[in-house]
């Protein structure tokens, strides 16, 4: 095999937990750049697609690769056997539940008129899963890679702070969170500092007041 391509089996990718679903982090694993690509898997009755809406302009396509899914889009429900494609326009609620064991749904997303710019939520989901399993070094390596790729993107530093807070490393957590606050020119991080449960382990630390100020 040459460097310019790669073969991947969805069954072989290490999964991550995200919002009550099991994510197969395809984009993170492959480094695919033109669009967001990921997959979700669940057994019968399990949540496949976390309930959510996407921002303005963000289109998503779901493809049932294996098994059967029950989609809810807006207020409509539909049965979706393997080979079914479901398109969801921006700002419309969507979720899906597996109707057979081993169901896999592949998802593609992007924003109309904009180059795809990976926010890294999927990578963070994998890092956080590693943290929950006690694999701190592997999780930290992912966060460091994300920061190296987009050093000026405040949400990545913020997530790295959450990771370290949850992992029990307050010094590292405050370093990342201070950096996030510096980078966040619009002050959007403030509401997260106030209400994010991930930061509870360090909330009583005197240094936390600096972040709220």
């Amino acid at each position: 095999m040459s460097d310019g391509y790669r073969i991947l089996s969805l069954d072989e990718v290490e999964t991550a937990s995200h919002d009550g679903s099991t994510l197969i982090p395809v984009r993170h694993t492959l480094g695919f750049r033109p669009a967001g690509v990921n997959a979700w898997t669940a057994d019968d009755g399990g949540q496949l697609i976390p309930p959510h809406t996407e921002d303005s302009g963000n289109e998503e396509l779901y493809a049932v690769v294996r098994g059967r899914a029950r989609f809810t889009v807006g207020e409509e429900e539909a049965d979706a056997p393997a080979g079914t494609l479901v398109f969801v326009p921006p700002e419309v609620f969507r979720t899906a539940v597996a109707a057979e064991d081993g169901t896999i749904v592949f998802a593609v997303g992007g924003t109309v008129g904009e180059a795809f710019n990976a926010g890294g939520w999927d990578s963070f989901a994998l890092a956080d899963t590693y943290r929950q399993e006690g694999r701190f070094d592997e999780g930290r390596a992912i966060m460091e890679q994300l920061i190296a790729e987009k050093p000026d993107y405040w949400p990545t530093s913020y997530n790295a702070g959450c990771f370290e807070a949850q992992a029990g490393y307050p010094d590292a957590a405050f370093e990342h969170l201070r950096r996030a606050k510096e980078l966040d020119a619009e002050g959007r991080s403030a509401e997260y500092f106030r209400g994010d449960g991930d930061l509870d382990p360090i909330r009583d630390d005197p240094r936390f007041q600096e972040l709220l100020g």
Partner: protein
Amino acid sequence: MSLAHIDDLDRIEMPDGFVWRPVRKHFGIRAFGTNAYTPGASGQIVEEHTEGTLGHEELYLVVRGRVRFTVDGNEHELGPGQLVHVSDPSLRRAGVALTDDAAVLAVGGKPGAPHEVSAWEYTFFAGPHIRAGRYDEARRLLQEGLQEKPGSAPIVYDLACVEALAGEGEKALELLNEAVATDERFRKYAQTDEDFASIRDDPRFPQADV
């Protein structure tokens, strides 16, 4: 709900033997490029090609059946839930279905650039109508493409083919010269394109040795 099974999408038979299932157009997706393919008479499911011209990075997902992919000369037999990610646009890739029920979903685009609908979507749509002599329908589809991509050389070239085949020599020559002026590669293609038999001897036909 905007939902469709791959088998229920339009079935566009291509000369290379594969069947194009136009996913992006069916759903009106604008954010990214995506299409599906099923095997045609020859068993081909992904046409042999590179993405050198468009610079696209591509991902092929086997949704059903078995497919033998050849990428950069290497063969890989893949089943449902397996992917081929071709990050290097210059690599030649193709797929042959090993089972009649095979289906492949493709996602692609140019990294770092907003998605643009490719001209080939319109020429692929018009192709079966051109081959069947339904020139009015072919014209309509290609004109629709020019609304989306004004001046696109591949679309203008195919429109020239339509006019030549329809006996509209003057229009064909005008369009063919427009395509060549936009993209010199079409000068070479025109030399051996049988669609232009009716206008090839006209002095205004683009000459090979320019």
